């Protein structure tokens, strides 16, 4: 037990003394999550629109007047379609509208007017959402009597605020990334600095050393989660907290053991910190991608959907979201707990064996 606490204490002390590492962890759990929440926007913002108006009429102006801040910048007039093309090519604007000379006439006469819209499809999300806006504007101006009215009821995230979701999933992804890196680092640093051999020669069994090292990193990770939760997710973005805080912490604890199991694999395979970084990125990218943190799982290719069942992060995200937004209790979401615990147990034990073989 004494050996356990010596190693545990030593690792915490070494962490606190390495300025760079502390800075990275603090940044990742605060500023990075804030940026993810604040910075990634799917709604159009300051979209640059250009137009050519051959119709010279009232209707075109009326449509254009609907394109206003903050979604759009004031539309710029161009004299010819060629100039409009060039502006799109030069990325001066991403949407160009062409009102033909018979636009106004045909709209009054036949109700069959047409506007040509040129969009820069490389800015896909922004330009397609802009297109949706345009359709709405046009639809709103014509009095079509449509037999169905869509009435929307927003559940769980009433303000439909993507910031909360983005910051929340970013926190969970960061937790994974740091748990893997930190737990691999505590081993590989010893290899790099040459203290590995001395560590092996201590009359302490390998189990104690490995567990002490791993659990010291769990403490750091859980501390980071609290920081991110308190200051950023709940503090700045004001996320709802409908479920039990302790249920979330328990899930996080189980999950960090899973990540640490992955960290063990990486530690066993790497000799330098550089290799840890490379391997981590290699493993984490598919893990995060398949988890549904960036794309909803139902939108994935069916094969990838099957693969996503293997990503422990998927269950962590599902479970945590249920706790926060749906107010679910442990009993309601036991499959998530069981999945995280099961995958965690397998990864931890196999990873432990792998690193233990080096002892």
């Amino acid at each position, binding site marked *: 037990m*004494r*050996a356990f606490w*010596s*190693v545990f204490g*030593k690792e915490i*002390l*070494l962490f606190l*003394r*390495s300025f760079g590492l502390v800075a990275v962890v603090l940044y990742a759990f605060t500023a990075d999550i804030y940026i993810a929440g604040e910075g990634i926007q799917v709604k159009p913002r300051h979209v640059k629109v250009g137009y050519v108006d051959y119709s010279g009429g009232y209707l075109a102006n009326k449509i254009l007047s609907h394109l206003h801040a903050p979604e759009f910048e004031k539309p710029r007039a161009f004299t010819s379609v060629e100039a409009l093309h060039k502006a799109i090519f030069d990325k001066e604007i991403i949407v160009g509208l062409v009102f033909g000379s018979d636009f106004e006439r045909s709209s009054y006469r036949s109700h069959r007017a047409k506007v040509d819209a040129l969009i820069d499809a490389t800015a896909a999300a922004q330009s397609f959402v802009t297109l949706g806006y345009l359709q709405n504007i046009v639809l709103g101006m014509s009095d079509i009597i449509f037999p169905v009215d869509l009435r929307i009821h927003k559940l769980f995230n009433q303000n439909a605020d993507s910031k909360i979701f983005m910051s929340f999933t970013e926190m969970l992804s960061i937790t994974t990334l740091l748990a893997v890196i930190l737990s691999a680092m505590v081993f590989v640093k010893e290899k790099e*600095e*040459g*203290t590995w*051999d*001395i560590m*092996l*020669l*201590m*009359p*302490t*069994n390998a189990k104690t050393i490995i567990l002490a090292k791993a659990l010291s990193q769990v403490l750091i990770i859980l501390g980071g989660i609290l920081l991110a939760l308190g200051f950023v997710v709940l503090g700045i973005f004001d996320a709802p907290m409908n479920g039990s805080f302790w249920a979330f912490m328990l899930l996080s604890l189980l999950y960090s053991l899973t990540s640490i199991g992955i960290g063990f694999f990486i530690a066993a395979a790497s000799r330098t910190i550089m290799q840890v970084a490379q391997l981590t990125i290699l493993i984490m990218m598919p893990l995060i991608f398949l988890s549904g943190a960036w794309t909803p799982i139902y939108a994935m290719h069916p094969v990838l959907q099957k693969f996503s069942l293997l990503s422990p992060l998927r269950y962590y995200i599902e479970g945590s979201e249920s706790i926060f937004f749906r107010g679910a209790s442990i009993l309601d979401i036991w499959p998530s707990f069981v999945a995280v615990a099961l995958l965690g147990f397998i990864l931890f034990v196999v990873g432990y064996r792998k690193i233990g073989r080096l002892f």
Partner: protein
Amino acid sequence: MLQVSDVTVRYGKTIAIEDANLEARHGQIVGFIGADGAGKSSLMHAIAGVVRFTGSITYDTFTYRSPKEAEPIKDKIGLMPQGIGLVLYDELSVDEHLDFFSDIRGLRRDAEYHRYRQRLLEMAGLAEFGGRLAKNLSGGMQQKLSLICTLIHRPDLLILDEPTTGVDPLSRKELWEILDDNRRQRNSITLVSTAYMSEASKMDAIHLFDEGHIIARGSAAKLIDSVRPYTYEETTCEGCITFGGRTYSLQALEAKHAEPSLESLFFVNALQKGKIPPPITIAPRENPIDIPPVVMEAKGLTKRFGDFVADDHIDMQLRRGEILGLLGANGAGKTTFIKMLLGLYPIDEGELYLLGKRIRSYEDRIALKNKIGYMSQKFALYKDLTVLENLLYFANMHQLPLSKAKKRIDKLAEGLGFAQYLHSFPRELPLGINQRFSLAVAILHEPVVLFLDEPTSGVDTIARAQFWKLLHELKNRWNISILITTHYMSEAEFCDRVVVLKRGKKIVDDTPANLHATYPEAKSFEDIFIHFYKDAR
């Protein structure tokens, strides 16, 4: 003619070399001697025009004050940096290396070029290995290849940073022959640094480096003359230093004068600076124990890495209270052997007995871990823990009761002379202090056998002398057995018995006295071992 005036090299706040002045003429070999961190490499890099410096350097008529200004004469300079095989590429063959270095220098491949290239290959003994990949060459061959790659563009100013460190004595001799031949044929200026005092006799002028200053210069004979008045036969006195059978004192002593060596210069320099190393004391063992007459016995120990045999059927015995020196060049299999003894590498073949017990399994070792002390290469300890924190951590790992551990740490810190550094971080301390503090870590739990892996490499002369004294003190007080590896052949002198490894095979196993008796004409151990190396070839 090379003239260096007031050159200072700084890395951030640390001054690597300060106000260095030196002159070298064409055809001269100028040697730099000193410990790691004394400023040799920094001065070499400044002259080669690869680091920023203040002051000025004049080569023939061309003066430069920065790496940029040095650009026009770079094709006249050949620099070989420190580290075995550092300039080589593992996956290129000997011929491909020469092609590559010729191409980046833009050499014309005429008949003269091929004649010169062939001569270099023959001098280096590499003519028949043209197709062999660099990674399959021995350390000595790698260094010879690096040297001829540096020579291929016929530099007039040759700068070689420790080309011989860690290389076997025979290859070292051959390296010096190439250098000597080159300076006679080409009349070039050669600057060469070395960790071996015995190589000083091959230099025309020597510069001794200590803590960023050149403390003495001149020919070997002149330098030795300068300290003769301060060198006496071994005696005891106040305010002097005694080591290796000689006593150094600034005051006149009753004793007879002794013949000094180049190393004496460092001792006299320390005396002149008033830096007398603190005396070393070892307290008796707290827990006396019975030690069997044979502490470790290896029978036919073998370790293979793929096709490569790192240690080939090695027999060795380590007796109670014996200092056994395990000597050999880099890559001879010393570290691998120690790691097998410690159980850090599995044994592929052979039997190992530690303290009379056959070691077969992991469990056997666990039981013995408290009896073994180990100090790894480069004194690896936790850099972000203070000296005291490091010691306490290891005491905890050895389950020493806290109050007892604290007392023992104080005693060791006092006795080994690092008590005032207990609250410093290892990286802030000189190498010599780190070396003694690492030893304290290794003996904290009072082991009966101590394995030391290259504890003296890179450490300055005085700290090295201190360390050897410490080991003898430890042996006498604790009756401990010590297995120590080193690539300094001259340190054989301080061992009770020496074993020399060459490419994984044992070629010598004898006492220093016996070896001297067998080869009475040899001036040093270096010469003795060259006999064995030649025979084993």
